[in-house]
């Protein structure tokens, strides 16, 4: 009952914020870019809301719970991704302006084929990211509400309710409404982590002492053997002859596997359409840069807490498993059989049913805010890059706006249809690992096909349209080919590199882009493009205009 009440309050609050803060003027500039007036801190919180899906909220703590130190590499890669964004992309991307990644690349390289190729890749990335989020919303509903509406299964109800709510929120609220709801949603996620961490620490949990105790014995996790479960030692991937320990590396990845994962996540962030589109909403390039500094700070705080809670779950659940029958049912030898339940169980131990409900609502919030960003990015790509450019170039603002809303609806329906086609009963035990795995594919595709071209287009004058197209296609083909091979081979040996192949595919994409660019002609007006992308005249103009506006308001106030 608590879960249902919290869920209803959440959905009503999300819908209300989006509708109240919806754009007042009907234009695509407002709908896609929130008038380019989103402040640094607000945008940083919104980017975090966009970025932290269920994979971050439940998945990082679960990975630490199951693998100890090696479970932290996901969090490291997610947070590290914003460093290249700040150094190479944020400010020039915003200064060049435009509405989306395909729009930026198309105009920078003055090429229709670049625009169309990047639309295709952006849509693939969005789909790879969106479908697992929709699946996650269904699984969360099934696990914590457990009932369907109107004859539908609980899973289908979860998928449809979340899709409809977010679709309406994005279609009505546009970027402005979505920005504010995502910022609020991130603050809610952070508050839940802070609340749980305080409860854990106040209960007497000592991070360093518990770590010593956890690392004193070899790491062992439950495995299913026929009809029963038993604890089995975790294989050490660094030193196969030795046992793995919670506080030491080797519980999940080989040395090469660690690099491959971190690089895939770090490079992938710069190519994620829903994250990069947020930079177009900053008022200036400098603001976009400072927004990234805030994002890195907030992400660091979020992941430090996630790691602490994953460690606490390993220690606390082991200690109480013998005393609490409902925990004993979920564990073997004091270890959860499904590590993804770690935070939920911790929430119930310290906060009762309300605590469990709060964590479940947090997971749903993480999913919903990510779906909202993805739908908006997809709408910008279809509505602006395809409809306004190719289908109806003379579209009025009203027509373009409705095209964007229609794109939101179509993409939402497609992702819901994919999610409904999945058999949830085979995935429930894997949630949110399945979300993290599919999200990693999106990162791999983004980091292989888009990021190298992005960086070269911004920092190398000789980059050309044909070079970018060749690079994007090479990156995508190599990444998909290696990932599929990795799926067939499993994650042993070089399989870990094949499953996170950016370490190979991104250099391939960059090399092909450079080679083809050297053989073709760059855009004619390179000086103009460079002035716009690396100059600060537009920034200074925006700052001056803001100062004039503030001075005007002050004078008007004095006269009164």
């Amino acid at each position, binding site marked *: 009952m608590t879960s249902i009440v919290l869920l209803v309050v959440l959905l009503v609050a999300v819908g209300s914020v989006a509708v109240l803060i919806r754009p007042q003027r009907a234009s695509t500039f407002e709908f896609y870019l929130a008038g380019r007036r989103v402040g640094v801190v607000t945008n940083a919180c919104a980017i975090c809301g966009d970025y932290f899906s269920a994979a971050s909220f439940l998945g990082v703590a679960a990975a630490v719970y199951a693998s100890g130190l090696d479970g932290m590499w996901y969090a490291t890669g997610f947070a590290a991704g914003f460093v290249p964004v700040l150094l*190479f992309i944020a400010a020039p991307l915003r200064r060049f302006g435009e509405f989306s990644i395909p729009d930026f690349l198309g105009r920078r390289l003055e090429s229709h084929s670049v625009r169309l190729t990047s639309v295709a890749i952006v849509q693939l990335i969005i789909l790879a990211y969106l479908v697992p989020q929709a699946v996650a919303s269904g699984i969360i509903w099934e696990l914590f509400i457990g009932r369907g509406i109107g004859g539908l299964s609980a899973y289908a109800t979860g998928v449809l309710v979340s899709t409809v709510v977010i679709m309406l929120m994005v279609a009505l609220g546009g970027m402005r409404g979505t920005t504010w709801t995502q910022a609020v949603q991130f603050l809610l996620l952070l508050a839940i982590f802070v609340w749980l961490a305080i409860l854990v620490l106040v209960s007497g949990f000592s991070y*360093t002492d518990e770590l010593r105790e956890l690392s004193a014995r070899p790491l062992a996790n439950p495995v299913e053997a026929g009809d029963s479960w038993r604890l089995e030692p975790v294989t050490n991937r660094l030193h196969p002859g030795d046992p793995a320990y919670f506080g030491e590396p080797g519980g999940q990845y080989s040395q090469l596997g660690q690099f491959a994962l971190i690089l895939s996540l770090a490079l992938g962030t710069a190519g994620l359409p829903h994250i990069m589109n947020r930079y177009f909403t900053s008022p200036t390039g400098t603001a976009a840069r400072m927004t990234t500094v805030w994002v890195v700070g907030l992400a660091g705080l979020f992941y430090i807490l996630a790691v602490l809670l994953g460690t606490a779950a390993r220690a606390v659940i082991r200690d109480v498993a013998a005393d609490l029958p409902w925990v004993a049912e979920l564990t073997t030898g004091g270890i959860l059989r499904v590590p993804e339940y770690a935070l939920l169980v911790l929430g119930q131990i310290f906060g009762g049913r309300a605590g469990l409900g709060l964590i479940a609502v947090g997971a749903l919030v993480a999913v919903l805010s990510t779906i909202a960003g993805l739908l908006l990015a997809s709408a910008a790509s279809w509505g602006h890059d395809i409809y306004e450019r190719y289908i109806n170039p003379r579209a009025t603002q009203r027509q373009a706006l409705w095209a964007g809303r229609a794109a939101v609806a179509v993409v939402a329906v497609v992702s819901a249809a994919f999610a409904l086609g999945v058999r949830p009963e085979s995935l429930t035990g894997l949630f949110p690992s399945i979300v993290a795995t599919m999200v990693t594919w999106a990162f791999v595709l983004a980091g292989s096909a888009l990021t190298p071209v992005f960086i070269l287009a911004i920092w190398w004058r000789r980059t050309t349209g044909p070079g970018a197209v060749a690079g994007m296609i090479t990156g995508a083909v190599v990444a998909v080919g290696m990932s599929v091979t990795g799926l067939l081979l499993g994650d042993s040996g070089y399989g870990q590199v094949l499953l996170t192949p950016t370490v190979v595919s991104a250099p391939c994409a960059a090399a092909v882009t450079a080679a083809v660019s050297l053989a073709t002609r760059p855009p004619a007006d390179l000086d103009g493009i460079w002035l716009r992308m690396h100059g600060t005249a537009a920034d200074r103009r925006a700052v001056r205009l803001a100062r004039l506006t503030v001075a005007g308001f002050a004078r008007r106030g004095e006269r009164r």
Partner: protein
Amino acid sequence: MRRPDGHELSLGSADEHDTPAEVDAAFRTLRRVAVGHIAVFTGVIIAVPLLTAALDWWSQGRLFGGMSPMFAMTACGLYAFFFVICLAAATLSNAVEERMLGGPAREAPQDEEGTLPP
């Protein structure tokens, strides 16, 4: 200032501009800043897991209670490092742009409220 379709409007006589030579010089300096910082970032990211193979103390030694230097770095230190390197790079890049771009307009006389003379 922008029209509803997103294109820039001019501010007339108060319009700001950069010259290609200024922008090129700033661009080259910013590229050096970015490459320098990404080299440090990459070095640290590679060093954290790699030190395990070179130095047993890194993953098996104890700093506080049961926390090894590697655990402390991965659980907390790396995030502080990301923040510091981002803050340093952003501050330096902003300073470079402020000094190297917007020369003539920046020199223009302004009154106390920051408004330009008519």
